[in-house]
């Protein structure tokens, strides 16, 4: 992976740096850092911290997409796990609340995996079911209100810090390392790519596709559940109507910006996280810029288009041909 990075990730890393520099232009104090209550404080930290939930979603999503699947339910899973964590936060010890929230994520993942791998339903349809139903489940848990809590242990997941870094950032780094070790430290990553590239061929070569696809969806939902706990802890309450709303799209976008093909067969964890940071660096920059909010989505779309064009092989061929023609 380390060897593949410089070649494949160049466009993404360049895009991230350029966007950060643009942020610095619209907001001169962008790179300023100081300690506030034992936690680093500054716009750069905001980008990492606010980007953490989407980065977590992207970590799971990238594996699902590598198997030529997609998971639209991650936003709803966030809402469910946040609702469960918030409902249990004040009445139970924090490990119980967190385990219950992650357990719910596990079940959601098994459900998605069952529909996709066992019943053979197309991933976009299969996960659409939970995307719609999941938010309803979350609303049932919270009874349509914002459930607030005061447990400092759960709140740590959103606003705590470790060695000055916000807890969500630490969690993302941890999950990135764990996921990286599991899929790239073994042949699993290769098998996932093989399954995405040609499911039938890899099945015939003896790869247990079903179990692998189910576990990939489970992992994706677990990441989403963790993101849900972070989102709830951040505002000290579970907002079932809005938690994770449309974040599945941001997660897919992060994966795509990270150069992973929606047709499966190849993926990069680091670049997916990088994609999430690109999206957040853009969001934070827009907020700092002082433009009227009507421009937010237009600016976002334009930047995404440019980043994707940078990666387009056809465009770089065109540019190369044009240069050759002129030379």
């Amino acid at each position: 992976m380390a060897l593949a990075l410089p070649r494949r990730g160049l466009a993404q890393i360049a895009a991230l740096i350029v966007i950060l520099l643009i942020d610095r232009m619209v907001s001169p104090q962008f790179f300023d850092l100081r300690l506030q209550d034992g936690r680093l404080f500054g716009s750069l930290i905001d980008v990492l911290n606010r980007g953490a939930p989407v980065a977590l979603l992207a970590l799971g999503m990238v594996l699902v997409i590598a198997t030529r699947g997609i998971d639209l339910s991650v936003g709803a899973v966030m809402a469910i796990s946040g609702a469960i964590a918030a409902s249990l936060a004040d009445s139970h010890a924090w490990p119980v609340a967190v385990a219950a929230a992650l357990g719910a994520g596990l079940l959601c993942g098994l459900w998605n995996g069952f529909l996709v791998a066992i019943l053979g339903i197309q991933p976009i349809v299969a996960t659409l079911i939970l995307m719609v139903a999941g938010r309803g489940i979350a609303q049932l848990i919270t009874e349509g209100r914002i459930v607030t809590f005061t447990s400092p242990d759960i709140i740590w997941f959103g606003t705590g810090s470790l060695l000055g870094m916000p807890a969500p950032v630490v969690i993302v780094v941890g999950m990135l390392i764990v996921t990286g070790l599991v899929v790239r430290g073994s042949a699993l990553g290769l098998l996932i790519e093989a399954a995405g590239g040609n499911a039938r061929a890899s099945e015939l070569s003896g790869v247990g596709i079903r179990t692998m696809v189910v576990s990939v969806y489970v992992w994706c939902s677990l990441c989403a559940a963790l993101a849900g706990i972070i989102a709830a802890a951040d505002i000290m309450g579970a907002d079932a109507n809005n938690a994770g709303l449309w974040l599945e799209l941001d997660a897919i976008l992060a994966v795509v910006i990270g150069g992973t093909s929606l047709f499966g067969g190849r993926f990069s964890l680091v670049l997916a996280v990088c994609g999430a940071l690109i999206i957040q660096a853009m969001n934070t920059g827009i907020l700092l810029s002082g433009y009227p909010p009507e421009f937010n989505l237009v600016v976002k779309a334009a930047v995404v288009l440019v980043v994707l064009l940078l990666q387009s092989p056809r465009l770089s061929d065109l540019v190369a041909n044009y240069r050759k023609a002129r030379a």
Partner: protein
Amino acid sequence: MALKRILMSLALASAPFVAPASAAQLTVGFSQIGSESGWRAAETTVSKSEASKRTVNLKIADAQQKQENQIKAIRSFVAQGVDAIFLAPVVSTGWDAVLKEAKQAKIPVILLDRDIDPSGKDLYLTAVTSDSVHEGEVAGDWLAKTVGDKACNIVELQGTVGASVATNRKKGFDTAIAKHANLKVVRSQTGDFTRAKGKEVMESFIKAEGGGKSICAVYAHNDDMMVGAIQAMKEAGLKPGKDILTVSIDAVPDIFKAMVAGEANATVELTPNMAGPALDALIAYKDKGTTPPKWIQTESKLYTSADNPQQAYDSKKGLGY
């Protein structure tokens, strides 16, 4: 169709008992939108208690945010022969046909919380709504009065872009502070009416305004965004309510909690009690034949930390917000 006929005959059969229509035995059908927000849940709770206060039999139909469900509910209310229909419309258009059916059945319709665009205003008796431009004005007036002659840089957390409530609350606030040259909105961004976005946007405002030192007040189009913004200020080492004044709209329980803690200054109430004035207008109409005005505006009451926030919190927390 068969079901409708059965319902009709049931309604007719029970008619002799309902017939001596005094206020005590009114039956009102209420087509509620669904559980879209805490405020909506509170409105349902308050509607029930207001109805039982007046011994009105209130039948609530939850439309789950779908207009077709609301139309079905109204048709079923008409078939049951209720005395009046309350409608909290999920959208503003497409009501003509079903309201004409209610009109033919001589059942008055009262709109709650939101207005509609019917072809004729005679399709409903009255609309009980809040004036969201006025809410913004109340917020702006409070801020102008509190700040006095000091220069004051305001940051604004807008609601969802394009939502009429957000546009109106902005307009009202802008009108109110336009009279005071010392008040200026320096930053304005959308927080989508949510706590999470309110917090994120406030974090960026604080950084963009030199650590928040040049911000004198925050105005949020709803309390939820303000609750998020208060957390952002605290995490940045600022004291909301003291270093930075806060004023928001809705009066949900959690903002009163913040007021008790001294972290919020003022909120303008969007009352969940739309059914009370509607029932009063209906009873007067049925008993004395008084036709109410086409629009009954609810009060946009200002609450500050001087108005016993603890008591306000206690009275609101059980309403389902």
